[in-house]
């Protein structure tokens, strides 16, 4: 009796919504106004199926449609409960999650239960889904739901970072079986989640409209409609904001436009140090395999000066692969401050007193950036001739994934420090299979991170991570260059734009 | 008679007209003080060579000059109004209404993208104040009068749907449609075939007589003048040098230039061939100031006074005036220069008399490619069964209207196109001289390279030998060796044609094919080239195939003539006989259409221009191809094809009724 149960469910949903609305009078008045927030969206949307979503702007939409068992606090970046109200583990192997009750699916798909969690994870694991995030979940040994509000997951090996895996991000986002099946081949365009907003309509060329999910478990969001307008050019987007055509500018990445907007009195919502940008050193290269050469490069470039010169707002110097706000960040790792004399000395020791040619693989999407021009300039002062190989983005990605380069750049966008260390430093992930493009393999470090992952004691774990960071920064397979800041300028009346460390905004918090 | 006193009834009185072209390189004084009068209904011909300013003068009358031309001074009194003082708007009331104009090239003088009706009717409505319907009826009646068949329907045609002759008729209808008092015709028949030319001239004559319009007729063809004009003005270097009644001018020319011009024309009577008169030198550069008589450098009778003071147009009696210090011009002296051409010496031995070119049953069909595989492509039979023989040293003239296939024969003879069927035997090699001297040379080559090209290509001699040969050839065509390193653009038309001949002779060909070699040249230069060809023929015993529509020239230079019509030879025989006693009705019509530069003779001739035009070669008639235009044609002609048959001992003709 599917029909009747469905109508019953929607009746309950309506009742729940009315109840919630009654509880919070402020929200009622907000709802009555039916506010619309117009947000700049900076590229063509590519779909919102969690199993194969990619690119931050799409992920940000999905972040507001779906929920995970856990999520990230917008301000601190710490893991906080979402669909799971609490969890426990003793050994980082068996994890028990207690689910929130009464959570309603969007579009009348009923109440959220443990079965949805199991379905979602299995879907990612199913080879037919061909999810690129499958490796995130392959560590799961068994999953079961002893009751509709409990999920027990047993891992093959201890993983202290598992809460990141089940967060509201990629594979961690929970989907509804019925909705997936109803969408058929168009899952990416028909997302149904439990988040604060649902997808109302989409025109892939020009706009995405999200509407408030009135049955959201935390209560309806203040803004009724999120209208994302696609504006690709940063300068045009700034003009649109100054013209008052949009309320919120998702990501302004031109320093000079930020200056203009700041001077014009717009609100500069931002998150600092969201991710670090690193130079990947290919250790199979005959020159770069010498650690002295890598250190010389690190000493030769004055990144603080570069950031101060070209993008004091958008960039900051970075001294580690991990960001200072991460819980496992260690201050104990070596730092490489600008010292051209030391660089020259190291080069001479390594047998390159007259320098060498450093080929740097880069994407041509931005042309040659000012940063790269500065790098060339600095390196030339110690005798290193940096040559840029500029290729278009798909080619760049392909070559970078194959490890076909001498040096290349990468952004490390992840809130899970464990993930960063494993992906980039563990020998199992050496390119082309994984992200370890440096082909770095130091057993000492490998054992440190493996042990850290299994370690349940936070203090000991921290020690192991500190050790790993120290080794990594000593061996220097990746030279940290810059930390990136993300800016979402808005009109002054827009409040609650808290950009998390995944560069996403939880629109439930936003009002105007 | 007081000839030069303005007659009160003069329709047009032009006084001291000056027209300049202000170019970057200096002011060209194209018209340099011209005065004349035209009476009602009078036909005045203005003759002169290219550059004499005759067209600029005519265009100045209505201020139709294009930039940078400008009427600088003078009076143009039309019925008492000075056109030169009218504003552009006032002049627009005169243009078309009081003065109609007929231009030279009918192919380009009508708007190609506009129907005839749209070009003809609005001016009639405007100038005569008629309603559209009445104007239309008027236009149709004019088209009818100029001989456009089915005028009511044809008025909706586009110009490209008509032949050149038809377009010129339309032009005439347009010019006359608002009943102008004066018609200016600027070389109205130059671009047309001789038969059509005759028709048009007759038409103009009739219509102006009918409407009482006066006419200014610009031409370089003295024959036409004789046939057509009441009065003649001869222009040289921007001035009228002689003006007077046509008979008087032809009978007793007073100016040395007029006299020389008349002598350059091949004589009609072929009893004895004399060399043509030549006018040495070139006309003066109109940008430079001229002191004295402009003709002095080319005049055999020039004396000191001619170099100091320019003679003005002075009356010579009987309404005749000339601008020369000598009362009789060259006078009796002019006849003395012309030498008799000795008849060709008989061949020294039998071999010298052999046939060098033999053409047997030659066919050339052009098939337009159709891209629809299932559709049969149409075929044009450009040459349709021709047989000819040319002996060594003999000159064969081929005449016929454009489209008769004479140029195709030339190309086949030269091996430029393959024949569809039939044979061509050439003993030795054929070379060619082209029509248009301005486009027949590679502009990037020096004359030396142009002349030696055949030698280089065939690997003839060493470099030094080739140079010697080029010098020799230049000598043969009467050009200085210093020309060797110039470019074609630096030569005059006549000089270029000499180069073309030198080049053609380089490999000592047995036959030289000359396709209209003189038609682009001025009268005086034409005479030089004809004389040169005659000399070469005598000296080198080269055979020539001389292709032209100019019957006078052809009959003058040729030993034998072949008359072509629609790809066939209709008459073939010795030049004198064919010209003086044509057997085929087509030949007869052609010859009667040729204007003779003798007003007395012209008056005596009975004009019966050939009617109609050349039928399309796409669908040839079954019988005699000329039957559609032949005055003698019978039903038998229309159904039975006639082939070339002996007519007399020396001649062949293709007419059922020739004998």
């Amino acid at each position, binding site marked *: 009796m599917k029909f009747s149960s469905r109508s019953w469910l929607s009746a309950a949903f309506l009742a729940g919504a009315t109840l919630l609305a009654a509880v919070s009078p402020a929200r009622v008045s907000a709802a009555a106004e039916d506010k619309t927030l117009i947000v700049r969206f900076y590229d063509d949307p590519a779909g919102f199926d969690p199993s194969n979503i990619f690119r931050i702007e799409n992920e940000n939409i999905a972040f507001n449609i779906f929920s995970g068992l856990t999520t990230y606090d917008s301000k601190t970046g710490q893991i906080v409960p979402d669909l799971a109200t609490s969890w426990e583990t003793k050994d980082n192997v068996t994890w028990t999650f207690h689910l929130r009750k009464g959570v309603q699916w969007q579009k009348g798909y009923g109440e959220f239960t443990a079965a949805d969690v199991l379905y979602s994870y299995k879907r990612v694991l199913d080879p037919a889904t061909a999810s690129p995030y499958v490796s995130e979940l392959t560590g799961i040994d068994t999953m079961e739901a002893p009751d509709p509000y409990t999920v027990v997951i047993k891992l093959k090996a201890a993983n202290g970072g598992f809460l990141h895996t089940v967060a509201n991000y990629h594979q961690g986002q929970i989907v509804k079986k019925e909705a997936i099946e109803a969408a058929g081949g168009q899952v990416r365009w028909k997302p149904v989640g439990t988040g604060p907003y649902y997808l109302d309509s989409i025109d892939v060329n020009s706009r995405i409209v999200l509407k408030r999910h009135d049955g959201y478990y935390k209560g309806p969001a203040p803004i009724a409609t999120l209208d994302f307008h696609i504006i690709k050019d940063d300068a045009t987007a700034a003009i649109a904001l100054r013209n008052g055509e949009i309320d919120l500018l998702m990501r302004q990445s031109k320093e000079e436009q930020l200056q203009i907007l700041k001077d014009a009195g717009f609100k500069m919502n931002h998150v600092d140090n969201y991710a670090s940008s690193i130079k990947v050193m290919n250790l199979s290269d005959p020159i770069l395999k010498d650690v002295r050469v890598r250190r010389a490069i690190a000493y030769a470039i004055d990144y603080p000066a570069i950031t101060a010169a070209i993008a004091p707002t958008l960039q900051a110097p970075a001294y580690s692969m991990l960001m200072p706000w991460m819980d496992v960040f260690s201050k104990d790792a070596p730092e490489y401050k600008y010292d051209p004399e030391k660089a020259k000395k190291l080069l001479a020791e390594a047998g390159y007193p007259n320098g060498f040619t450093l080929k740097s693989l880069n994407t041509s999407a931005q042309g040659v950036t000012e940063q790269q*021009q500065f790098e060339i300039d600095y390196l030339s002062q110690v005798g290193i001739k940096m040559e840029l190989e500029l290729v*278009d983005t798909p080619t760049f990605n392909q070559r970078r994934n194959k490890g076909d380069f001498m040096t290349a750049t990468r952004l490390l966008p992840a809130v899970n420090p464990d993930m960063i260390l494993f992906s980039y430093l563990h020998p199992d992930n050496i390119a082309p299979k994984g992200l370890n493009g440096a082909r770095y393999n130091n057993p000492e470090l490998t054992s440190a991170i493996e042990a850290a992952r299994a370690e349940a004691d936070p203090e000991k774990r921290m020690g192991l991570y500190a050790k790993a960071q120290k080794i990594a920064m000593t061996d220097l397979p990746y030279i940290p260059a810059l930390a990136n800041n993300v800016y979402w300028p808005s009109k002054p009346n827009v409040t609650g734009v808290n950009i998390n460390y995944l560069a996403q905004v939880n629109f439930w918090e936003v009002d105007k | 008679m007081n000839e030069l006193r303005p007659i009160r009834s003069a329709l047009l009185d032009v006084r001291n007209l000056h027209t300049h072209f202000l170019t970057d390189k200096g002011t060209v004084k194209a018209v340099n003080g011209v005065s004349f009068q035209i009476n009602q209904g009078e036909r005045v011909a203005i003759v002169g060579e290219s550059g004499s300013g005759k067209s600029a003068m005519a265009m100045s009358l209505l201020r139709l000059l294009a930039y940078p031309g400008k009427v600088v001074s003078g009076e143009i009194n039309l019925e008492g109004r000075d056109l030169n003082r009218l504003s552009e708007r006032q002049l627009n009331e005169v243009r078309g209404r009081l003065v109609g104009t007929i231009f030279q090239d009918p192919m380009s003088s009508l708007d190609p993208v506009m129907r005839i009706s749209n070009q003809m009717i609005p001016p009639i409505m405007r100038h005569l104040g008629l309603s559209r319907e009445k104007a239309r009826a008027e236009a149709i009646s004019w088209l009818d009068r100029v001989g456009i068949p089915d005028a009511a329907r044809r008025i909706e045609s586009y110009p490209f749907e008509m032949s050149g002759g038809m377009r010129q008729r339309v032009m005439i209808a347009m010019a006359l449609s608002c009943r102008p008092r004066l018609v200016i015709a600027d070389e109205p028949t130059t671009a047309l075939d001789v038969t059509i030319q005759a028709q048009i001239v007759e038409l103009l004559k009739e219509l102006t007589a009918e409407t009482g319009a006066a006419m200014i007729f610009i031409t370089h063809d003295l024959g036409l003048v004789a046939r057509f004009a009441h009065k003649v003005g001869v222009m040289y270097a921007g001035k009228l040098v002689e003006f007077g009644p046509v008979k008087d001018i032809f009978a007793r020319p007073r100016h040395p230039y007029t006299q020389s011009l008349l002598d350059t024309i091949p004589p009609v009577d072929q009893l004895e061939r004399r060399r043509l008169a030549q006018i040495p030198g070139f006309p003066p550069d109109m940008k430079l100031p001229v002191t004295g008589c402009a003709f002095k450098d080319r005049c055999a009778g020039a004396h000191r006074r001619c170099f100091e003071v320019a003679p003005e147009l002075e009356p010579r009696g009987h309404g005749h005036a000339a601008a020369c210090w000598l009362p009789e011009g060259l006078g009796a002296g002019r006849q003395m220069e012309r030498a008799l051409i000795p008849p060709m010496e008989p061949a020294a031995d039998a071999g010298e008399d052999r046939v060098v070119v033999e053409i047997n049953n030659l066919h050339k069909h052009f098939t337009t490619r159709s891209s629809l595989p299932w559709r049969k492509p149409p075929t044009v039979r450009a040459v349709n069964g021709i047989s000819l023989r040319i002996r060594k040293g003999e000159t064969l003239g081929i005449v016929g209207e454009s489209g008769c296939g004479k140029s195709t024969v030339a190309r086949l003879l030269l091996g430029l196109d393959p024949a569809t069927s039939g044979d061509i035997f050439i003993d030795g090699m054929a070379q060619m001289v082209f029509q248009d001297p301005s486009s027949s040379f590679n502009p*990037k080559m020096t004359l030396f390279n*142009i002349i030696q090209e055949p030698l280089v290509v065939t690997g003839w001699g060493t470099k030094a030998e080739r140079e010697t040969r080029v010098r020799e050839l230049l000598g043969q065509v009467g050009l200085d060796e210093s020309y060797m390193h110039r470019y074609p653009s630096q030569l005059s038309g006549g000089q270029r044609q000499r180069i073309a001949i030198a080049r053609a002779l380089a490999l000592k060909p047995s036959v030289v094919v000359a396709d209209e070699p003189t038609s682009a040249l001025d009268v005086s230069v034409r005479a030089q080239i004809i004389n040169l060809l005659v000399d070469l023929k005598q000296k080198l015993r080269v055979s020539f195939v001389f292709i032209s529509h100019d019957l006078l020239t052809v009959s003058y230079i040729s030993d034998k003539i072949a008359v072509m019509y629609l790809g066939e030879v209709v008459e073939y025989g010795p030049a004198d006989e064919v010209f003086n006693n044509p057997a085929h009705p087509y030949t007869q019509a052609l010859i009667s259409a040729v204007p003779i530069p003798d007003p007395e003779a012209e008056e005596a001739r009975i004009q019966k221009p050939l009617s109609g035009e050349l039928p399309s070669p796409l669908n040839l008639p079954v019988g005699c191809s000329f039957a559609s235009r032949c005055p003698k044609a019978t039903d038998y002609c229309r159904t039975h094809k006639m082939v070339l048959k002996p007519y007399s001992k020396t001649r062949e003709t293709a007419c059922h009724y020739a004998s």
Partner: protein
Amino acid sequence: MALISIPLPAHRSIQFNFSSLNGTIRLLSNRRVQLALMILVPILLLTVFRPFLPIPGPLETNLRAMTKPPSFVHLFGTDRMGRDILSRTLAGVQISMFVGFAVALLSLTVGLVMGTLAGFFGGVIDRVMMTITDIFLAFPSLLLAIGLVSVMGTGMLPVVLAISLSDVPRFIRLQRSLVLSLRSRAYIDAARTVKASQMWLMTRHIVPNTLAPLLVAASIAAANAILVEAGLSFLGLGIMPPAPSLGNLIRDGQTYLEQAWWISTLPGAVILLIAISLHFLSDGIRQVLDPRSRK
């Protein structure tokens, strides 16, 4: 490029002797040519002698003089990295002019050879060649550019190739139509009556007479190439900085338009001057070549 497309000029039969001194003098006495040279020659001289001018090198950064407006020290001002715009502009002229001329030369050469063959031999060769040009004309040039950059990386060569490839079909067509109009000229017939070889006809009679209009087209193509390179730079497909092509300079500067107008405007003005003078040059050549437009 779809970005900027300047069709090649309609041509007429043009006769002109470049070989003769007379022709050169006529060309030099043309007012448009004079104007073009008055702009081009000083720019080129400055470019050539830039290393000897008392200005910083094009790549020299100066963090003490960032984003300075034009002044006596920096005539064109400085950019975000404190580099002297004048110096960069002059270096950019060098690169851009090279691109322009390389494109013109390449398109001209290929167009000349292919167009001559197609026009002269006609028949199957012609039809195949025309089909190929059709295909290339229907092929968006941007795609070509992206493809080439993907294969070869950014740099001078792919840029020149990408722009040339989209120009070549036009040149082939122009040359073909020129050859067709010459093929039936009397002097070709004259050479054929002495059985001159096809090679002789093409090299002696046809090609020399098509050079002039092709040169006109080439000078326009050169101007166009400089602009297209600028467009490609905008899309990240052009010459790579810090080597400053004029396109790069404009692109880099255009985002600072509100704060520092000089960064993009002044190099832009130089591009304009060069492109205009190239157009004047082509106009001048055309006027000298074509007596009809000389009135």
